[in-house]
């Protein structure tokens, strides 16, 4: 306490520190150390054999001397102005106020609470522990989801709100499962069905509908970054032509309820697992999507980043330049992970009947360069590879203690000599035959025309004669290739290799390898092993978020220590176990979730002030979360209500120029980083570079689009036509009621009806130059337009 006695003379030049507030180690000191020091001096690493994650460690190492900040190396080093010795070595120095806090803490005796302990071992992090199915709490709930949720309600004094009205629930589950609202007939049928399982029947019907695969396939296409190709002019630089085959594979497999584990295996390694099955090979479009003409490192960085984030909830990308700062993941692990993908390149396999891969073909992955070395970039700088380091494929040891079990795959000969496929051979025969016949016809025609002309004119036929020779040579080359497909030249291989980079000029004459490395299969098997702690947890969280409007783990692509813990840890684990035990069936998961009581709650907070106070963000689900329709759902719903939606499935995307007139579902629109549909963009269409979750912006352009676009105005007109066909001669009130039911899914309340009737009266006044019945119809059109602009049209309640 000596230093607190004022010494007047010194005071003039030097102000002693004011009697400092006692510093709270847990609140004020530990967070600074955690943020800036633990990565190198904590559980992950102990550089200089030092760790600073507990008071005892700091004292034992002598870097903190209680009461003597100037002799404490911790303080001296963080406060140093010498860049060579200052800690931390990376980034900005600690802020002066942070240094002051640390200093005051040491000065006050470097006190830590009795419970102080080292930070936990990262391997014990909740998401890295195996999934163990927890017991369902015995609270008498029929659906286990409700049991886990109810426990939290009780714990937090939350009272769930009432169930949603039946009509609201029906619209919710329709939009949720198939991305389209129910028609008035469907709503009526549901409201009139008094049977106990009326709702369950609807759920089954929707899950069996082919529109289900389009809806949920599109969700996962967001996560998997689906994009049509883009480049500059005709030069393809990113993704692949005809990648829509992969989109169709996704939709079909969601509809078939293929296990999520099997979908992962096919996307990562169908070329090794099903090397001659073109339908399954479409799945490797997942690996075709990150293609980038100019930079292989960028291409593979994207594969690593999004395989990590999308399937595993791991930010592997943080290890590109340095060891991961939060998870036990080294920079070497990053390059070992890259090595799994290093051998793969792309090719486009012919589809029977189309010899031109510019017109159609299946873009797919294959191991082109089994021996390609993986570089190790010092500090992540590709200009600076470590030439002495050999990188071998592998996985981070903390997640895969047994390593990656790689077994090379001998491919069947049709896989690397697709010309052996009779349908492909026939495709070439037809094309070459047709060209030969055309050349013959042309020459014959010319010769006939020139027959009675002077002989010196015969030279006019020379080019045609040369063309015939070329066609004959082509035929001979094809025959030779068919006789010995191993030596087929690039133009007759049955597949066309994609340029590895812009430096690739000539078509690759090297034969395709007969053996694939098996690396990706090994990865896929490890990812889909039921012992993998991450894959199922991450997947059920994706699915949960799309049903409930918010995820259980808020950091959807970050399940590592930097992420946030789940709101309902046991529920998450129960769902993950349930999912895996049911063959990774997504439809089973949907069924469990949408038939829960919590899914059927109202989304209104009316009368629930106490809940709002306790849990305003509704993290504990005492009500349903209202969700804004995704861009595709807004457009599809407008067309559907207008009776115009074309439910044709699959096939090449609708090109931009035809989209305005197209009535297809929006997921079939050509969409890339360069080509956007204006209407979908306004409603936050998925960013093709990364979209784990759609943005839900509320911007004035959305209002303008729903008021002014031809799409919305036409839909309003058609909806009005349909309504008027039924209610033309009825009064305004039945019309308004029918319009509400059709567009918003619920009848109007009394005051809503009054508002519409008032508006109709005013509108008739405005339109007094028109004659009936046109005047009424025109006035009603504005009511319809107002309803599609209603908050609860674009909102899933």
């Amino acid at each position, binding site marked *: 306490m000596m230093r607190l006695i004022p010494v007047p003379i010194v005071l003039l030049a030097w102000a002693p520190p004011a009697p400092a507030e006692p510093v709270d180690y847990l*609140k004020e000191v530990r967070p600074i150390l955690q943020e800036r020091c633990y990565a190198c001096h904590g559980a992950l690493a102990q550089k200089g054999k030092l760790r600073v994650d507990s008071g005892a460690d700091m004292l034992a190492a002598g870097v903190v001397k209680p009461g003597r900040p100037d002799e404490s190396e911790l303080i001296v080093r963080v406060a140093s102005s010498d860049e060579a010795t200052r800690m931390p070595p990376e980034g900005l120095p600690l802020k002066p106020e942070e240094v002051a806090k640390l200093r005051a803490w040491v000065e006050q005796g470097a006190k830590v609470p009795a419970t102080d302990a080292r930070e936990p071992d990262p391997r014990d992090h909740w998401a890295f522990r195996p999934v163990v199915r927890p017991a369902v709490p015995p609270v008498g709930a029929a659906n286990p989801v409700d049991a886990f949720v109810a426990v939290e309600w009780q714990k937090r004094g939350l009272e769930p709100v009432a169930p949603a009205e039946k009509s609201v629930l029906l619209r919710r589950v329709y939009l949720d499962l198939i991305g389209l609202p129910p028609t008035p007939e469907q709503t009526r049928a549901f409201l009139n069905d008094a049977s106990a399982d009326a709702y369950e029947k609807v759920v089954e019907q929707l899950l069996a509908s082919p529109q289900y695969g389009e809806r949920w396939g599109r969700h996962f296409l967001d996560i998997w970054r689906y994009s049509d190709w883009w480049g500059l002019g005709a030069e393809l630089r990113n993704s692949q032509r005809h990648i829509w085959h992969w989109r169709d594979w996704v939709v079909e497999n969601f509809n078939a309820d293929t296990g999520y584990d099997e979908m992962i295996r096919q996307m990562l390694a169908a070329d090794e697992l099903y090397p001659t099955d073109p339908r399954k090979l479409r799945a490797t479009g997942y690996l075709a999507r990150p293609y980038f003409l100019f930079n292989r490192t960028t291409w593979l960085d994207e594969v690593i980043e999004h395989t990590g984030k999308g399937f595993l909830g791991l930010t592997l990308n943080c290890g590109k330049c340095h060891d991961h700062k939060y998870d036990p993941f080294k920079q070497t692990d990053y390059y070992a992970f890259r090595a799994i993908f290093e051998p793969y390149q792309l090719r486009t396999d012919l589809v029977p009947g189309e010899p031109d891969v510019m017109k159609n073909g299946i873009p797919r992955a294959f191991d082109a360069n089994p021996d390609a070395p993986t570089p190790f970039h010092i500090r992540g700088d590709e200009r600076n590879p470590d030439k002495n380091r050999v990188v071998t494929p592998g996985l981070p040891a903390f997640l895969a203690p047994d390593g990656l079990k790689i077994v090379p795959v001998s491919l069947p000969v049709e896989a690397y000599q697709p010309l052996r496929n009779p349908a492909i051979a026939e495709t070439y025969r037809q094309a070459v035959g047709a060209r030969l016949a055309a050349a013959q016809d042309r020459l014959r025609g010319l010769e006939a025309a020139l027959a009675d002309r002077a002989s010196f004119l015969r030279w006019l036929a020379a080019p045609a004669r040369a063309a015939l020779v070329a066609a004959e040579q082509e035929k001979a080359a094809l025959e030779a290739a068919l006789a010995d497909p191993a030596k087929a030249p690039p133009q007759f291989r049955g597949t066309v290799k994609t340029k590895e980079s812009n430096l690739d000029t000539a078509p690759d004459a090297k034969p395709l390898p007969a053996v694939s490395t098996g690396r990706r299969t090994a990865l896929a098997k490890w990812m889909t092993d039921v012992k993998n702690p991450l894959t199922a947890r991450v997947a059920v969280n994706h699915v949960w978020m799309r049903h409930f409007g918010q995820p259980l783990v808020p950091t959807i692509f970050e399940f590592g220590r930097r992420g946030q813990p789940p709101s309902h840890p046991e529920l998450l684990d129960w769902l993950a176990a349930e999912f895996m035990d049911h063959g990774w069936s997504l439809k089973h998961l949907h069924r469990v979730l949408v038939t829960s009581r919590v899914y059927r709650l109202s989304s209104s907070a*009316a009368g629930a002030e106490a809940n709002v106070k306790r849990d305003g963000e509704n993290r504990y689900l005492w009500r349903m979360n209202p969700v804004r329709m995704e861009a595709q759902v807004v457009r599809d719903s407008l067309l559907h209500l207008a009776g115009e939606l074309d439910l044709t499935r699959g096939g090449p995307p609708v090109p931009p120029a035809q989209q305005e007139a197209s009535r297809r579902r929006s997921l079939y629109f050509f969409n890339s980083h360069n080509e956007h549909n204006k209407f979908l963009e306004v409603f936050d269409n998925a960013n093709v570079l990364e979209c784990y979750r759609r943005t839900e912006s*509320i911007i004035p352009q959305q*209002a303008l689009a729903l*008021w002014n676009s031809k799409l919305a105005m036409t839909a309003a007109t058609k909806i009005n036509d349909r309504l008027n066909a039924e209610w033309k001669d009825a009064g305004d009130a039945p019309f308004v009621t029918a319009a509400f039911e059709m567009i918003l899914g619920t009848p109007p309340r009394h005051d809503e009806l009054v508002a519409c009737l008032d508006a109709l009266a005013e509108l008739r006044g405005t339109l007094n130059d028109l004659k009936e019945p046109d005047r009424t119809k025109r006035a009603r059109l504005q009511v319809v337009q107002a309803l599609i602009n209603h908050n609860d049209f674009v909102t899933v309640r």
Partner: protein
Amino acid sequence: MTVNRSDRTPACRGTHRRAFLADLGMGFTGLALAAMLHRDGFASSTGPGSWSPPDGKPHFPPKAKSVIWLFMNGGVSHLETFDPKPMLTKYGGKTISETPYKDVQNPEKLKIARVTVLNDANGQQRNKLFPLQVGFRKHGQSGIEVSDWLPHIASCIDDIAVIRSMWTTDDNHGAQTQFHTGRHMLDGEFPTLGAWVHYGLGTLNENLPQFISMGNREYWNLKDGHYLGPAHDAVPIRVDPANPLDYGKPELPVRPEEQRRGFELTARLNRIRAVDYPHDPALEARIRSYELAFRMQKSLPEVLDFSRESEETKKLYGLDRPETRPFGMQLLAARRLVERGVRFIQIQHGAGGAGVWDAHGGLKANHERNCLAVDKPIAGLLKDLKRTGLLKETIVVFATEFGRTPGSQGSDGRDHHIYGFSVWLAGGGIKGGIAHGATDEIGFHAVEHRHYVTDVHATILHQLGLDSRKLEIPGRKRLDIDHGNVIKEII
């Protein structure tokens, strides 16, 4: 906020509306991001390290309120505009290694380039020096030399701070994005300067979007908000009062009076719903967004209607000549927008290919034509802003993605050049009549007061009273180089 049932009678609507508008200024966009971060688990509203969106107020007293950002697509030759190098003419036709300046190609000095396209036809070293294609003269009291192709801008030089020592790292046109975001295209996508300003500062006019863009943006540079969210994308407009923005007017016939009643009905119905669904911020925000949409639809055509501008003013911007009219229209619109409190107006000049300034061949004809197109309008803008006093609070920026090589490409062009180039700023507290920084004798490397592109951002933010480090958001760590350093010498 909660809504009382009594609010639903038409007589109470007025009160109601004001209540919703009270926090329109910032609330709107900042809250959207807050909600987004919060829901993604990057920000928590309580506890240590808590984060909240900016309140829309500057962090310290600002010198400027608005920015007019003029970006020349394709890469303006610094050597033929603001950075004369007589040595190029002296050694014209010689290779760099034959001149006393051969050290400029020392590989150590070329390291900053980060190659996107290997073996590209463009973005290469050009060894044979290409003489200056235009004369230079000293102008104004400052005596700064400006190219003879830019006589009108030259007449404003005493209001301008030229920075002759810029550098960047992308030797391809992805550098356009880089100039707006500070990041190379291989790094991914990051918010542009305009998005940061929009994010950080509240509105000055509730009838207009605060961030507007005009002109053609190339495909790699289409958006602004990126991780700040689409609410911070610029609203693209056309200088056409009849059709100023996408969906800005009905695409099928409808009478304004009819539509207005429809709008009112939506508003009334939404307010009724707010009773059933209290504590629904999305519903409240949607009601406000419809109000703003309605006002935007009405006010933009008025802003873009030049009929009340005098003939003299129109001439000042070059509206009377076909060469200068298109750009002049955009700049006159920019002044009218700034006058009405729009924060950030981003205008890209020169569509086509990677941008019209991309003079790989025929540089002389190319730059003479392009300089003609922008010179009078830009000078007109500066003079007009000055005489109305707006220049004091408006920063005008003239920028481009990179300069052009001292050596020739083909016989008469210059290639992309990242090691040294020029931009300028004027107004909003920027000192006039200075040439800051310098390149070497042949305009190759920035050698004095070197500035990376984000230094321009830092300077602009500083004048607007913003500290970019305070804007940083959780989960999106920015590097020191992303923030840049304020160019103190010009303020």
